[in-house]
């Protein structure tokens, strides 16, 4: 059974304010987003699920005195203003609820493969092999200081009690900085 179903319109309204990219979501995007959120929620303790869903309803109602209408009825920019007030509320429980909700919505959006790809993050298990153009030696123009910086003066800051022939040491490695 869907945990989000009873509050879906509110959750979508909050998502559009917190993650503006969701304003362009098609039905399939919402389905993928909500599957991620549902999956994460389902793993949380039942009490936490109840608290979060209660907070969603509460936030929707608090928007009336704070913004002139429920979250669902407000335009995204107005919703964002209301949510920013909740984020800074003097009552810690309101801040906590806002933080928890945003975290869940970020999870729904920023773990989607197409969103990750669009962000430009290109983590790849093959590492440098997948990105030969990114190797330091392939980009001397980008980092001319690198060649100098990692040279002996840094190595001299470590203790010469070697634990490995290639290396200097563990104990002295945290000799600080000036």
């Amino acid at each position: 059974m869907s945990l989000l179903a009873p509050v879906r319109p509110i959750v979508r309204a909050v998502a559009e304010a917190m993650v503006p990219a969701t304003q362009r979501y098609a039905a399939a995007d919402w389905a993928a987003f909500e599957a991620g959120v549902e999956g994460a929620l389902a793993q949380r303790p039942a009490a936490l699920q109840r608290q979060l869903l209660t907070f969603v309803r509460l936030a929707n109602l608090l928007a009336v005195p704070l913004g002139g209408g429920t979250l669902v009825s407000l335009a995204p920019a107005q919703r964002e203003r209301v949510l920013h007030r909740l984020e800074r509320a003097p009552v810690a429980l309101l801040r906590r609820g806002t933080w928890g909700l945003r975290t869940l919505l970020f999870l729904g959006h920023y773990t989607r493969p197409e969103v990750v790809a669009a962000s430009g993050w290109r983590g790849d298990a093959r590492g440098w092999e997948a990105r030969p153009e990114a190797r330091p030696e392939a980009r001397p123009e980008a980092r001319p200081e690198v060649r100098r910086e990692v040279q002996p003066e840094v190595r001299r800051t470590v203790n010469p009690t070697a634990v490995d022939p290639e290396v200097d040491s563990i104990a002295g490695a945290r000799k600080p900085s000036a």
Partner: protein
Amino acid sequence: MTLTRDVVIIGSGAAGGTVAQALAPLVRAGLRVTLFEQGAQLDDAEFTGRELEMANALFEDGGGVLTADGAMTLAFGRAYGGSTVTYTGTSLVPDAHVFERWAIPTLTHADVTARAARYATENGVHFLRDDEINENNARFADGCRAVGLEAGRFPVNTRGCRGSGLCNLGCPNAAKQGTHRVQLPAAETAGVEVVTRAEVLRVGEREVTVRVSARPPGAKGRESTWAPGEYVVRAAAVVSCGGSMGSTALLLRSGLARALPQLGERYTCHPAHILVAEHAQPIVNDVGFPKSYFLDRPDEGFILETCMYFPFITAKNLTGFGADHQRFLDAFPRLQMILVMAHDRPVPGNRITIDTAGRPVVHYTFTPAVREALVRATRLSARIFFGAGAVRVHAPSADPPLLTRDDLPHLDTRVHARHFLTHRISVSSAHMMGGCGMGADARTSVTDAWGRAHGLPWLRVADSALFPDSSDVNPYLTVMALADRAAEALTADLGALRAGADA
């Protein structure tokens, strides 16, 4: 079902793996040792590097455990290898002043360093080559130099690192030398029995009750070698290696608080911020080892480390939401990151308890000293970021959180403890310490300097729960050294313990 062993080890991380391997020679001579691990053992092909999938597979609650008041996220591993599967592998030993502050008889900097050095060698600890340092890291060193400081290079424990940058999601190339790659396989080869998906429910006088679970449908990891069910395992000695949270909660739910009144106290955790800056041009940040440099500021109460996280974790750790927040995430190829960690001290009230189900609950209040340390660290990080060429810096303890170069002369007012608003800004921890602190006196500690629980000679603790105060640096090598000491003491005591069990 009731079974009998000589030694039971609970947990397979830095401590459990160390103890298991240290006892291996005795196992070859006939000692019966079983290690229980709550998490699963993943096959190499299951390390995909996908953020949500791996977080759910390798971390307790997917890495989303919160403190009792919800103000801090606590990330710790739950897998064959424990948190050594998900740490970055930076290999430091605390400075001598840390052990002077701990003031534990026989626990000296020299002793810890000597023991840690053995494990560092075993784990292939070394410095990265120059051509393995990416721009995210190199710019940190440059930025430090720009403000007149010298960054230190991290020793790391990898073999055959390909630079995936996915360390915190479990290395997909089997390069990181956690206990799942080094100590546990060695122990198993010698005959130590490792049982995964095995949650120890409680410990009693020379016995543990453990529940083995089947692999849930669709979950990663191998089935346990034991059939699902509940077992009672009697043993001459029980060594708790479940980490600060796991060991402390286990002993608390086992009703040992009366015998060990300091259980749960002296909790520290290096509260941390992930700071993010934006450059005008792309920098290489998402390929290469993510954590190559650090800047230690013990007199100011913090340490800075390079880091590079993944989109969701980054989004979560930036303050706020909306268009400004999203613009930062859209600029991922131009981002530089620094992890700032406060050196916190144990204070009354910061402690571990358990809920009605026996799960650990961390009570933690950010002291003024911790808040100020994080604020100072943020100001210095901002200077380093701008010194490295960044155009915008995201500072949690600023409101609004985005800083530009124009803010540089005003950092002391722009970044300020008055903006450290809990539940608005994100604070996280991956270094849980304390709860079963060492010491000479049962009134102020839980174990002696060798991990023997006061008054309960059959019960040993060998993990980060032993720390009587924070380590100020990444703790895994210290944990291995303490576990090595605990194993040494256990080996010395085994004859008497086995005789006691037989009687």
